[in-house]
């Protein structure tokens, strides 16, 4: 597999502050990679480094096999879409889209052709003569994508492109982006703090924290087998339920609960203090609960009916324990519930280094 973007031992410091720490990342041709993390984790900084908008402190960046560590942003074969759209306010949509081509001294006829093609792909032909101020947020972001599209680049960089849009438009454009990627088959690197965007768009997700990649894997893998406690807690809403306990003789023991771990795939040998995590949607409620590895009785303390499904807050061992049940089920505050779950659905983390067991 050829790699489209390759980052080797990348370091970035602002004075004494290390923003990116010895980061290595290899992105395959045509891959949709999402950099996910809370604000300040370094994800946008990393994107700016790839774009060449920030000078790095150490390391190398390759795009399509070329060492672009010292190259200007325009020489790297990248197109970038920004959160604030960053359209040039005094130029028309057409002017915005052709600006990069004019700088690259592309012949006029070809500019026209490429702009027309991009406008067709994004369905913004009627807007070509307008100024950005006369466009809605969704249209502006389309134009911004078009500006990257016309330049016929190898790699698209998206810096939280949908964060300024309202919820419905965001969902629409998200689908369009996915279709666009399917059609163009370009490499795309996408920065977001929205886990729904990350889960839906990505081929692989890189979860970042404090300038380090915590886990780099497919959305399914990240969801079902989080590499550490931070990833487990970050992905999923409501977050994974965590029980504090010990591993003894192949059992996880927390207070009066004891769960046989026969069904759990250990990635390393484990003993001593551990945390058991189980997602709210993996908890079995009602009659089938007794067939699971462990079953117990809880009381519904808070019931949040979301329509499609219902979230129920209970407590196990005096810690918060969320359940996700069908929207049809009739549960009221104070109801007693029989719940259970299987060790194969759970994630175990070492208490000392917070890594997956």
């Amino acid at each position: 597999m050829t790699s489209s973007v390759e980052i080797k031992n990348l370091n970035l410091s602002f004075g004494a502050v290390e923003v990116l720490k010895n980061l290595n990342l290899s992105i395959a041709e045509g891959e949709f990679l999402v950099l996910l993390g809370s604000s300040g984790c370094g994800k946008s900084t990393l994107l700016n480094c790839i774009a060449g908008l920030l000078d790095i402190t150490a390391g190398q960046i390759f795009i399509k096999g070329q060492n672009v560590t010292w190259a200007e942003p325009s020489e790297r074969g990248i197109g970038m879409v920004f959160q604030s759209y960053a359209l040039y306010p005094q130029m028309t949509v057409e002017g915005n889209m052709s600006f990069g081509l004019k700088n690259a001294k592309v012949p006029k006829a070809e500019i026209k052709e490429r702009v027309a093609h991009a406008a067709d792909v994004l369905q913004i032909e009627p807007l070509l003569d307008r100024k950005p101020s006369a466009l809605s947020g969704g249209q502006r972001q389309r134009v911004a994508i078009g500006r990257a599209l016309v330049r016929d680049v190898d790699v698209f960089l998206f810096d939280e492109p949908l964060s300024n849009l309202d919820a419905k438009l965001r969902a629409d454009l998200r689908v369009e982006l996915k279709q666009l990627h399917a059609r163009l088959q370009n490499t795309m690197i996408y920065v977001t703090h929205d886990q729904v965007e990350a889960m839906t768009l990505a081929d692989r997700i890189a979860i970042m924290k404090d300038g380090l990649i915590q886990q780099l894997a497919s959305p399914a893998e990240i969801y079902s087998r989080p590499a550490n406690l931070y990833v487990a807690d970050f992905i999923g809403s409501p977050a994974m339920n965590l029980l504090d306990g010990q591993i003894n003789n192949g059992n996880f023991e927390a207070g009066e609960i004891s769960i046989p771990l026969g069904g759990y795939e250990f990635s390393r040998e484990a003993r001593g203090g551990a945390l058991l995590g189980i997602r709210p949607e993996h908890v079995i409620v009602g009659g089938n609960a007794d067939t699971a590895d462990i079953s117990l009785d809880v009381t519904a303390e808070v019931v949040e009916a979301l329509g499609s499904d219902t979230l129920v807050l209970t407590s196990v061992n005096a810690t918060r324990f969320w359940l996700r049940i069908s929207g049809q089920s009739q549960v009221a505050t104070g109801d007693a519930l029989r719940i259970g779950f299987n060790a194969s659905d759970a994630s175990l983390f070492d208490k000392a280094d917070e890594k997956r067991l």
Partner: protein
Amino acid sequence: MTDVTHFEGAHGPKPRRVFSRRNIFLYGTLIMVALYYVLPLYVMIVTSLKGMPEIRMGNIFAPPVDITFEPWVKAWSQACTGLNCDGLSRGFWNSVQITVPSVIVSILIASVNGYALANWRFKGADVFFTILIFGAFIPYQIMLYPMVILLREMGIYGTLWGLVMVHSIFGMPILTLLFRNYFTSLPEELFKAARVDGAGFWGIYFQIMLPMSLPIFVVAMILQVTGIWNDFLFGVVYTKPDIYPMTVQLNNIVNSVQGVKEYNVNMAATILTGLVPLVIYFVSGRLFVRGIAAGAVKG
């Protein structure tokens, strides 16, 4: 058949009395302050339209009985300043020749300075900026004599171009600050997008930044035009009588000790000298406020 609903008690907009205590106080203060500023101007205009006999009667607030424009003509083309007696017209054209190039040169350099400081974080940018700003706090008088030597050594002492250079240099700290703050307030992502699009230092400056910066250019222009037009100190120090700017000439007319004090000519000359900045303010006042708000808030 009536659609009007009748409400009990308070409804609709709250009624306001025109002569409330608040309004009387507010508008009273405003009117008083306005009068305080307008009165001297009124006296100047009225006096400049009177003949000398009428002025000698001593009623400075009385409107002119016999309106004459002769003092204006005399101030413009006949009043004596030192050796030559061709009025303020000579000074006016001198001032134009000093102001126009000074304004253009200083704004061009300062805007590029500000743009570089805001967007291209070069090594030592902070030190450079600090030194530049420090320059704004040093009294001009300290630099008068060293500047004389500098101009003499360059061979442009006493010429228009010497004065243009002095004005351009002394306008630099405040103008650079103004432009830097304005460019810093523009979204950084625009600059990044332009770099990804392959525009260089000048490409971004001319094609992206300049078209967005009209308000701040107007502010800079007003500051410089009024500052340079009203300048007296540099004009009197760095030029020779033939090329004295209007302000220096005005001083020579008003302060001449020979003969009768022609108050009406003095008033007319003063108004003439102040006319250019006044016109500039009236024409571009709205842009001025917008630009000041845009440039000065952040930074």
